């Protein structure tokens, strides 16, 4: 298997950073974020899970999707092509989240060309998780701490004194192969270490069981706690709802440039589903919070294939009122069991 020592990896990353945009986990005043780095020294080595996922680079929080130029004539222009970007240190759950968003933007017609452009310009180098950390539950939603789905390459830190500080390299796509071309690697006979999995996690109910729990008073009680702060959505690597609006980019006499912005939106906000004239078919925090969970575990997989959750656990850590998606998963399983017991009785 190909192996990179830490110094070989550092050299390679430093070289990549001179040729294209290298993005990696960085400690930004105590928050772990994916940011462009100039060399390997800027990387927060030894990090666990980042506070925000690298989604910000393939589906930016705010992005101009077209520009509109109004002068003597009006012109609508495409956004400039994105810079080639390599994201280093992507956790396997976040790579699966990118695949979930791909299912909607790329596989479901019409294909979103702007998103495709960003995805094509981005290479994902994963770093396997040695264990599931607090609030991680990737195994509940079909992932693994060392999963390869959605990655162009996966590095796994090798254990044991004989390896020193080094990484096993799994190349997973042509993009990954191109990136590694010409890089000095060692060829060693190594066994990949098995990650430590958290035991005793709940089992996710199939979408039919979610359907049965839809009208349960449970959602009322859970939603009573929701502050509609939308933090869960903004830290989520799979949430993809967006708003569209225009803003002035520049203005001089007789000439204005507007940017049409695509910006992250959240189904938990009150105005989200409101229609012209003021009617809101999802009028309560309870109905909006329920929609968030149903989107993830029923609508999204039914409509597009993948689940709308990869078990990263960020929303659990972020929610100010301790609404816990993993608890919701086990509560729905319990509700479904109760329901079927009632049917039998």
């Amino acid at each position: 298997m190909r192996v990179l020592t830490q110094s070989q990896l550092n050299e390679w990353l430093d070289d990549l950073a001179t040729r294209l945009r290298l993005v990696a986990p960085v400690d930004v005043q105590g928050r772990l974020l994916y940011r462009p780095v100039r060399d390997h020294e800027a990387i927060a080595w030894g990090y666990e899970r980042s506070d925000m996922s690298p989604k910000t680079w393939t589906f930016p929080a705010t992005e101009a999707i077209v520009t509109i130029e109004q002068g003597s004539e009006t012109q609508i222009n495409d956004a400039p092509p994105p810079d080639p970007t390599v994201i280093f240190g992507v956790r396997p759950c976040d790579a699966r989240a990118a695949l979930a968003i791909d299912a909607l933007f790329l596989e479901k017609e019409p294909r979103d060309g702007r998103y495709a452009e960003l995805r094509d310009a981005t290479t994902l180098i994963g770093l396997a998780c040695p264990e599931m950390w607090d609030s991680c539950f990737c195994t509940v939603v079909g992932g693994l701490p060392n999963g390869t789905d959605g990655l162009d390459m996966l590095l796994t830190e090798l254990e044991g004194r004989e390896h020193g500080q080094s990484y096993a390299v799994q190349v997973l796509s042509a993009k990954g192969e191109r990136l590694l071309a010409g890089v000095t690697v060692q060829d060693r006979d190594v066994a990949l270490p098995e990650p430590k999995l958290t035991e005793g996690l709940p089992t996710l109910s199939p979408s039919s069981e979610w359907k049965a729990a839809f009208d349960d008073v449970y959602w009322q009680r859970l939603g009573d706690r929701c502050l509609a702060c939308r933090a869960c959505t903004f830290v989520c690597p799979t949430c993809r709802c967006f708003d569209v609006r225009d803003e002035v980019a520049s203005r001089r006499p007789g000439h204005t440039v507007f940017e049409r912005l695509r910006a992250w939106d959240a189904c938990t906000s009150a105005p989200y589903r409101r229609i012209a004239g003021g009617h809101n078919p999802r009028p309560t925090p309870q109905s909006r919070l329920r929609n968030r969970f149903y989107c993830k575990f029923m609508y999204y997989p039914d409509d597009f294939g993948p689940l709308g959750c990869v078990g990263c656990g960020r929303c659990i850590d972020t929610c100010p009122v301790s609404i816990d998606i993993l608890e919701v998963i086990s509560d729905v399983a319990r509700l479904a069991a109760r329901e079927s017991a009632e049917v039998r009785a």
Partner: protein
Amino acid sequence: MSKVYTNPMKPELATVRGVRDLATGIKLLQVTLDDAAAMTRFVYEPGQFAEVSAFGVGESPFGIASTTARSEVIEFAVNRVGTVTQALHRLDVGDKVGVRGPLGNGFPLDEFKGRNVVVLGGGIGGAPLRPVIQSILDNRGDYGKLSIFWSARNPDLMVFTDEYEEWRQSPDTELHLTVDNATPGWEHSEGLITTLVEGVAPSADSAVTITCGPPIMIKFAMLSLQKLGFASAQNWVTLEAKMKCGIGKCGRCNLGDQFICLDGPVFRFDRVEQLLESFV
């Protein structure tokens, strides 16, 4: 070799060809796409919608109020209720807008052939129904009796009033008007559209109904039609939402696992009833 990335969120540049008042606070905006090939491709069915941009403000979805058969321009009825519609109301002939569409599905008018058609329009909800009415009138022999129930909160808000005479004159066609609040000079019914429909009591035999209006009107119209013997599978509705993309991506318009923009906006009502979430 570089790949071509088609951005479905990029609007076509369009020019305003005409603006006229339809009702208080409601204007009819007539546009053509600047690119002749794009205009040729812009073929639409009654019931479909488009996203119209007021540059610098944003985009909003509007049911297309014209038919390809009758109109060389694309028409939108714009009710001034928010920032985009306010900006669109300020436009004049020659001004530029953006148009993306046609989007969503249309009414299956071919399926309705040979049957009596009952149309229920509430307020600005009349806009996407006008092309239905026009298409039936233009192919009058293909359909049975056409009963139009048309309503608004008050007489000033009735849309397409200058076309009522044409509708009435068409063979086997009746037009029933009502307003919630009559004003002096109003010669038609006063009261809710549901009362009017139940009073006239169109037959459910070999009939389909088409309803567009505010959600609360649709809800009660469906109950009235049920009383008259219409099965849910005979009733078609068109639903609305503030779709940001109109192409099933932005998430704004989901009704359970359905997207109003992609799976609708036209739905057979029994399908709406089966959804996990209520449209009201």
